[in-house]
């Protein structure tokens, strides 16, 4: 009977090295594509040579990257069952980070859609939702906790079948020197929630396969993505599909652009981000 060990000859350093190197070039359903231009799924209309990040993040897994100001990040819900929980930090001063309260309060709008600025607590726009054909997103419910996933799915560990968003964020954050106290409430894309007149939360779910959201980095960012079921997803089974991530060099929002002065609040947020970058020589 074949055993995993029986498929490898690893009795000497030389054989072990040969066995390890024999894996070169294999593909997995979820993996980073390095260099990014080698992605099997180049976004339409984007010259692959411009790509700076290409990765498929499995349901129940996470991705993270430090990206330059002006980077455009394309998130695609391949099957209609991804839920991309996102945290953003100013890569230069990471104590400046996504603030969900300011993100909904300052634009006077609880529901995220194209043009919505993702704001820090320091009066700057970290990223703009540059495009969106889903409309099913959430800035109110955060991500899943270990205790909630244990109660709902029987486990929450990153190494298990039903990781919680918080535990995946903890790992992603640690890769950038950030600790649990650096995990504020997050936003999520591709699974929606709506609020009733009495404040009750109603699940709206996803908008179907292939939906795309693009984020435009307005500052140099650390971006953390946990792809896990939304915390109010009513389905009893841990349900989360793959998330495709591609990023490429573009330009930050600037005078004359569609969103630069779409609202007075966002306009001043862009001014503040530009002011910060000018002072820092970015």
């Amino acid at each position, binding site marked *: 009977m074949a055993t995993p060990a029986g498929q490898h000859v690893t009795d000497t350093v030389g054989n072990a090295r040969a066995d390890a190197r024999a894996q070169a070039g294999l593909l997995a359903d979820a993996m980073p594509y390095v260099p990014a231009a080698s992605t099997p799924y180049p976004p339409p209309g984007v010259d692959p040579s411009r790509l700076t990040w290409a990765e498929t993040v499995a349901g129940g897994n996470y991705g993270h990257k430090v990206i330059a100001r002006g980077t455009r990040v394309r998130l695609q819900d391949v099957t209609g069952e991804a839920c991309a929980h996102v945290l953003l930090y100013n890569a230069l001063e990471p104590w400046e980070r996504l603030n969900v309260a*300011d993100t909904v309060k300052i634009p006077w709008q609880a529901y995220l859609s194209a043009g919505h600025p993702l704001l820090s607590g320091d009066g700057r726009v970290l990223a703009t939702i540059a495009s969106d054909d889903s409309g099913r997103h959430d800035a109110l419910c955060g991500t899943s906790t270990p205790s909630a996933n244990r109660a709902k799915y029987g486990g929450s560990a990153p190494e298990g079948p039903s990781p919680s968003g918080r535990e995946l964020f903890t790992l992603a954050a640690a890769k950038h020197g950030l600790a649990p106290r650096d995990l504020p409430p997050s936003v999520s894309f591709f699974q929606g929630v709506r609020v009733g007149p009495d*404040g009750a939360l109603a699940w709206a779910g996803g908008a179907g396969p292939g939906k795309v959201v693009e984020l435009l980095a307005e500052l140099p960012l650390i971006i953390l993505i946990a792809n896990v079921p939304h915390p109010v997803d009513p389905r009893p089974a841990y349900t989360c599909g793959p998330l495709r991530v591609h990023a490429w060099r573009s330009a930050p929002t600037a005078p004359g652009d569609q969103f630069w002065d779409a609202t007075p609040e966002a306009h001043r947020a862009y001014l503040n981000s530009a002011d910060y970058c000018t002072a820092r020589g970015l």
Partner: protein
Amino acid sequence: MTETSDLKAVLDPANYADGTVFDLAGPLAGGAIALDEIVPARAPWSAVVKQGQVLTIVDVGGNQSGDCLLYNARDTAERYSVPDTVVGGGNLYVRAGTVLRSCLGNPLATVVANEIDRQDTIGGACGKESNSLRYGHHTTAQHGCRENFLAEAAKYGMGARDIVSNLNWFMNVPVEADGALGIVDGISGPGKRVAIRAEMDILVLVSNCPQLNNPCNDFNPTPLRTIITEPG
């Protein structure tokens, strides 16, 4: 009203906008009083509330937002979480019975009494920088809740990394059908109260909101009263 050390002046309605009425009320729970303080207008406040103790916050002058953050007093990395509270209760508003949860989903405190229709936890805190977005750069010099939180958190060795989205006692933030939301006229009044029971030892930070550009304190910042009572 800028002098905060003279309690008599702090509690004299004549030092506030015309028509200001104060009602100091009293605790919403029956046990012995462990702490009873006045938070002057625009000022920060903090205390540790031990498990089982009840903290009553009195809206002395009416429609005065008390921005509030809670931490596990033994490990402040565990702190109040808006989304965990909202998801745990299935509702965006805070009312009597709402469990105020941490980022780990654990109960930090429970709202045991509430004298207004609903309390807010999505409106966040004002601050010098966010004022520049909301109202214009001419308001950046004004003091804000974020500054109060940072100053008070610093007393416990905490900083910007520890300031997360918060509760707003006595603030009114409706969400309309299309997702439009905002701070509108208050639904509180002089002497209205809310009380929370600590479910573990918690550190409570309060910013008595200094905002001058929206109705979260009726454009007239007034004092709050904080009372901690022992169980039973």
